[in-house]
């Protein structure tokens, strides 16, 4: 029974969320925030596989999200919508809700292939040097996308909203929320099953000591390829969802700032802790959204108190001062993150009565 508690809780939560959204209990804003929470969970926990479990420092993770976003958007437009560039839809519109997983899978595979850009150099390079390669990978991907005019180049690419509309016409449901929830479930299940399997134990082994891993018969190169590809594939899935929630993609949305956001979530949650990173992704999304209201409020207060002259204003840009500041404080006060490398069930042993993490 304990084995299934998490699945049951997740299913119940997902069904009630979808039902509430379908009944129109959420306004558009809350719905969007919920979906971004899910996307951030996928993005951060996939990064956690490389940075947390495998102990490498990847800081170009958004690049793979970019690949997923563009490939997914392109496929969804070609598959389900008529477009002056690509002509009539490839599949009948009624099939859209059933064939959308195909888009998710293909785009993830494409992103996983790009993961090789980092995986192959990782055989002979590690630590700081590999980190630089990951940044380079991020820029390579963005530059490629920006220079292909057929997909909009620097202007970005849109048309995915129509796919969503097509799906909504078939069955009226909050489809995007459903896909995000399914994506989260797939992502967490894949990661969890991977790191607890004997095969996946090769990942922490590589992290701790590659020599020792090799002499245990672990093929370290294979483990690295696998981990980087799974990680970037899942990031690609996050990208597809992101593109469809927004209805528009632009390569610059996946620059180093986005990668940094992922890093913040991983370090906030605790490296190598799946539940910690999920919590951190939720907390981070809420924090960013809360700042949307806190900053104008602070602005008003400062004006009322006369601290800030009337000519100057506290803008939303301050978000990018406050968030890094939180990271600095976190590193000072709790460098291991919320949960360290432990899972929730280790921190609260009583949970184990209800939940088995195996």
């Amino acid at each position, binding site marked *: 029974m304990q084995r299934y508690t998490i699945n049951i809780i997740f299913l119940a939560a997902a069904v009630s969320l979808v039902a509430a959204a379908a009944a129109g209990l959420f306004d558009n804003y809350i719905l969007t925030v919920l979906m971004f929470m899910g996307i951030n969970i996928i993005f951060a926990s996939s990064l956690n596989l490389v940075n947390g479990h495998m102990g490498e420092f990847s800081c170009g993770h958004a690049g793979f999200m970019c690949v997923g976003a563009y490939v997914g958007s392109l496929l969804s437009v070609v598959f389900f919508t008529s477009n002056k560039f690509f002509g009539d839809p490839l599949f009948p519109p009624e099939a859209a809700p059933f064939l959308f997983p195909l888009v998710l899978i293909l785009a993830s595979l494409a992103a996983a292939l790009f993961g090789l850009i980092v995986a192959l150099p990782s055989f002979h390079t590690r630590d700081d040097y590999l980190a630089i390669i990951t940044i380079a990978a991020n820029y390579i991907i963005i530059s490629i996308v920006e220079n292909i005019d057929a997909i909009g180049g620097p202007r970005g690419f849109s048309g995915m909203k129509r796919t969503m509309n097509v799906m909504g016409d078939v069955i009226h449901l909050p489809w995007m929320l459903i896909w995000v929830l399914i994506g989260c479930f797939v992502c967490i299940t894949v990661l969890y099953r991977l790191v607890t399997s*004997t095969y996946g*134990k090769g990942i922490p082994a590589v992290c*701790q000591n590659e020599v020792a891993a*090799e002499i245990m*018969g672990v093929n370290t190169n294979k483990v690295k390829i696998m981990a980087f590809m799974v990680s970037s594939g899942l990031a690609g899935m996050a990208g597809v969802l992101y593109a469809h929630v927004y209805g528009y993609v632009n390569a610059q949305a996946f620059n180093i700032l986005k990668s940094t956001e992922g890093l913040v979530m991983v370090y906030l949650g605790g490296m190598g802790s799946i539940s910690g990173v999920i919590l951190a992704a939720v907390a981070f999304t809420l924090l960013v959204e809360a700042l949307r209201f806190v900053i104008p409020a602070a602005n008003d207060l400062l004006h009322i108190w006369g601290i800030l002259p009337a000519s100057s204003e506290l803008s939303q840009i301050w978000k990018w001062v406050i968030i890094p500041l939180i990271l600095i404080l976190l590193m000072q006060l709790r460098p291991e993150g919320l949960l360290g490398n432990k899972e929730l069930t280790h921190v609260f042993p009583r949970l184990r009565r209800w939940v088995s993490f195996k």
Partner: protein
Amino acid sequence: MLTVTDLKASYGKIEALHGISFHVRRGEIVTLIGANGAGKSTTLKALMRLKLPECPTVTGGDILFDGESIMNMEAHHVVGKLRMTLVPEGRQIFGNLTVVENLTLAAWTNTGDTRRNLDHVFGIFPRLAERMRQRSDTLSGGEQQMLAVGRALMSKCSVLLLDEPSMGLAPLLMYEMFRTLKKLNDEGMTIIVVEQNARIALQLADRGYVLDTGEIVAEDAGKALLQRPEIKAAYLGG
């Protein structure tokens, strides 16, 4: 069984082994002794075909295992196919994994019955069974060394390479460790051991090689080497 001819290995531009040759017969205990920097650990890493960035590059010579060259193999093949494995210097266990997780990692080589291999290792080191679910970085030094050897045994190896198994062990534990090695050898395991503590290594070994700055300078039966005055003076403290 294992024949090394004219093996040369280097770290970057610095050559650490200048062409050493030796052989090991099945069922033997062979020891390599020598001062720091003589090339003992380098030899073991070269034998294991480790190719990671911090490992030496083999620049010449040949290693034959049962008559076939293993120069094109990777370390995980050496473990998986030849059943030869290494207990590295300083243990190098996986600290953030539990004892049993450390051991079951060996299932990577698909040696069939993990359960039975576990029982076998716990039979040799009952202490590890008591500490099974404990994180391995919380073990004492001696227990960690047991785990390192136990982990190697999990891959059902027939050739065991040990790099400084006595390092950091109290004398009593050290003797116990060497007794265990002798017992494994009696059961048919071929053992190659690199040691700083030349006296205990030579007492245990059938044959010994003395390495000095990347070259083999002496070779004889272990007991005979113990008697040689120049070895006594250089490695046994007179």
